[in-house]
C-alpha cells in the first residue's frame, strides 16, 4: 500500500511518496498525469515478477482520475488551442487503468469500478470471477483514491465528518485453490441501531493450524477503502490452514457487503 497526504500547495507533490518513486515510475508524462495514476503505476511496477500475457487489472476507486480531469478543463481555459493533445488520454475516468495495462502489457480483462464505500468487496468479487473463469492466471487489484479538491468537495457534501485519507492498495493475485471466498451483499435493516458507521472493518474468524497469535480486528472509519483492504490482505497472509478472515464494508446508504476468505486445510 502507498498512503500519501495530498493536501499540499498546488504544484507540490504529496508527502509520503516513497523515496524510489521516480526511479520506478520515471517522469515521462508527469505534466499530464495525476497522482492517482502515478501511485497505481508505482505499485504495479515495483512488484517485480515474471509477467504473463493476458493479466487482469481491476481498479476500485470512487474518484479515480478527477485530478487530471479537472486539470484538463482548467488548462483548456488557460491555454486554449495551445493545449497538448496528451492531456486527454490522462484525463479519462479510467486513465489509471489504461496506463497500468500499458505499463505491464496486461491484455486481459480490465475495468475501473465505483461502488462507493462497498468498492473493496465489489472489486474483489470482479477480480475473483475473472481469475475463476480462467481467462487470466494473474490479476492486479488496485483499490483507493487520491483526493483532489473536487473529490473532497463531493465526499464532504455527502458526509462532512467522514475522513478522506489518500492512498492506494495493490495486490497481485494468482489462480489456485489455496483459498476460497464467500461473498454477501445485503441492506441493513432500517430499524437497526447502526453500531457500525460508514467505512470498513476486518477481522480474523479462525487463525488456522499452527498460528499462535491472532491479528487484532481492524476498523477504518473513512471513505477510502484502500486502508481496510490492506489490513484484510495482511490478515490473509497470517492465516494458517483452515483459518479465515472477513472484510465487511458499509455505505452511508446502509448497504453492506462482505467477503470471507478461508485458507484451505492441510
Amino acid at each position, binding site marked *: 500500500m502507498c498512503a500519501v497526504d495530498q493536501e499540499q500547495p498546488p504544484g507540490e507533490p504529496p508527502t509520503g511518496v516513497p523515496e524510489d518513486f521516480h526511479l520506478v515510475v520515471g517522469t515521462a508524462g508527469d505534466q499530464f498525469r495525476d497522482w492517482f495514476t502515478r501511485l497505481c503505476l508505482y505499485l504495479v511496477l515495483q512488484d517485480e515478477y515474471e509477467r504473463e500475457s493476458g493479466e487482469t487489472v481491476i481498479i476500485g476507486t470512487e474518484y479515480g482520475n478527477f485530478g487530471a480531469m479537472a486539470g484538463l478543463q482548467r488548462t483548456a481555459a488557460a491555454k486554449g488551442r495551445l493545449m497538448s493533445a496528451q*492531456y486527454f488520454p490522462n484525463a479519462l475516468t479510467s486513465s489509471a487503468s489504461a496506463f497500468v495495462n500499458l505499463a505491464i502489457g496486461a491484455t486481459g480483462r480490465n475495468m475501473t469500478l465505483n461502488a462507493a464505500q462497498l468498492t473493496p468487496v465489489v472489486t474483489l468479487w470482479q477480480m475473483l470471477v475473472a481469475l475463476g473463469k480462467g481467462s487470466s492466471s494473474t490479476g492486479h487489484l488496485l483499490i483507493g483514491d487520491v483526493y483532489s479538491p*473536487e473529490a473532497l468537495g463531493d465526499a464532504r*457534501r455527502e458526509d462532512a465528518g467522514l475522513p478522506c485519507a489518500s492512498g492506494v492498495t495493490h495486490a497481485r493475485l494468482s489462480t489456485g485453490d489455496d483459498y476460497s471466498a464467500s461473498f454477501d451483499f445485503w441492506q441493513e435493516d432500517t430499524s437497526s441501531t447502526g453500531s457500525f458507521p460508514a467505512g470498513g472493518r476486518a477481522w480474523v474468524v479462525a487463525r488456522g493450524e499452527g498460528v499462535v497469535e491472532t491479528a487484532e480486528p481492524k476498523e477504518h472509519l473513512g471513505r477510502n477503502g484502500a486502508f481496510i483492504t490492506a489490513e484484510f490482505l495482511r490478515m490473509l497472509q497470517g492465516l494458517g490452514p483452515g483459518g479465515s478472515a472477513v472484510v465487511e464494508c458499509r455505505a452511508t446508504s446502509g448497504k453492506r457487503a462482505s467477503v470471507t476468505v478461508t485458507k484451505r486445510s492441510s
Partner: protein
Amino acid sequence: MSRGPESVFVTGLGAISPAGAGKERLWDDLCTTTARFEELKPIYPGMKPGILSGRVPESARVRAQELTGHRPSYGTARSASLFAEYAALEALGDAGFTPGHPALRNAVVCVGSSDGQADALEDVVAGRCDPADSGGYSSYSISDDVARAVGSVGPTFTVHNTCASANVALSCALEMLQAGVADTAVVGGVDPYSEKNLIGFNTLQAIGPHACRPFAKDRRYVTPSEGAGFLVLQTERSLTGARSPYAELLASAVNNDASHPTAPDPEGVASCHRMALAQAGLEESDIDVIFAHGTGSRANDSIEGAIFQERYPQAAITAIKGTVGHLMGAAGAVGAVASCMALERRLVPPTNIGHEDVELDINLVTGAPRSLPGLRHVQNNAFGFGGNNAISIFRSIT
C-alpha cells in the same frame, strides 16, 4: 431456449438519445437514418465553431423528468442520472415490472459510463456551482440513483472502460446472474454532454463540421453524442412468461490492447472477437449481424472493417453512429438495445452512408432496413481509448 439454469435473457429495453425519449424513437431514427446533429458553440478559447454533436432534445429531457420525477438541484446538470433513470424505468416497464416489484429488491444494478456525472463536475471545476449544491458527482451516484428509482438494494456499481463501458457493465451483470447473486439485473450505459470530452477530442482533431460516416471512403470525424440505453436481464428461472424475452445474452467478452493510449490495436480487437465467440460457443460463420463500433474515425473503422472483411464475410454489418452519433460510454448500450430490437423484428437498420461510399468489401447495410427472417445471432461491438475492447453476443429465442 434452455441452455441450463445459468441462461440469462433480455426482457426489457429502454433508451434516450438525440432521437428523443424512448427506444421506439431510437429505432425509428435508425431505420430512417434520421440524424439530428447540431453545431456546437466553441467552449474554450481557440475552438472553432461549427463542430457537430448530438444532443438529447429538450422535449426528451422534459419527458424524462416527468417519468423520473428527477429535479436537478440547479440548471440541467446531473444529466447522467436523468438519462439513466429514464432509460432504466422504460426498460423496467417494458419487462413488465413497476418500481419496487419484489423481483427487483435484490437486483444487480450496473451502469457503464465513460464520463460519469460530467456536467456536474465540470460546473464545479469552472466555478459555476458549489460542490455542496451539485447534487453529487461521484460516478457511483448514477447507479445509486438508478437503484433507488427501480427499488433495488442489491449490488450497485458503476464501471468505467471509456467507450466500451456499457458492454463491460453487461459482462459484470451477466457474471453476477450466472453466479446466483441475483435473478434480475438492471444494466446499461450512460454519458452526458461533456465539455472535457469535447475539448479532448478537439485536441486530437477527431471532431469537426462533418457528420460521422462509418466505413465510408471519405470518413473523417467522430460525432460526439449523449444519452443512455438500459436492459433488464433475467435468469431463466425468474421468467414469468408475462412477456417473451427479446433475446438471450450469450456472452460479453472484455480485453485490453495494452498497446497505445488512444489508437486501437488490430490484434487486441481481433482477440476480443475470438473471446466473445468462444464464450458464446459460436463460430464466426454463426454471426448473422454485427452492430459495429463504427465511429467514423480512420483508425477504428480500418481495423474493425478488416476483421469483418476477413472473418465475417456473411454477416450483415451496420453502424448506428452515423445516425445517433457516438454516445461514448453508452454507445455499447444503445447498440445492445438496437441489437435486441433487430432480433425481435428480424430487421437490420442501415448505416447512414450511400452504398457507393463503402470503403471495404464488407456486407454493410445501407439505404433501407434489411429484412433477415432467419436472424439468429447478433454481435454488438464497443471499443474505446485506453485499449478497451468489449463485445456482446445475443441470440434469438425462437
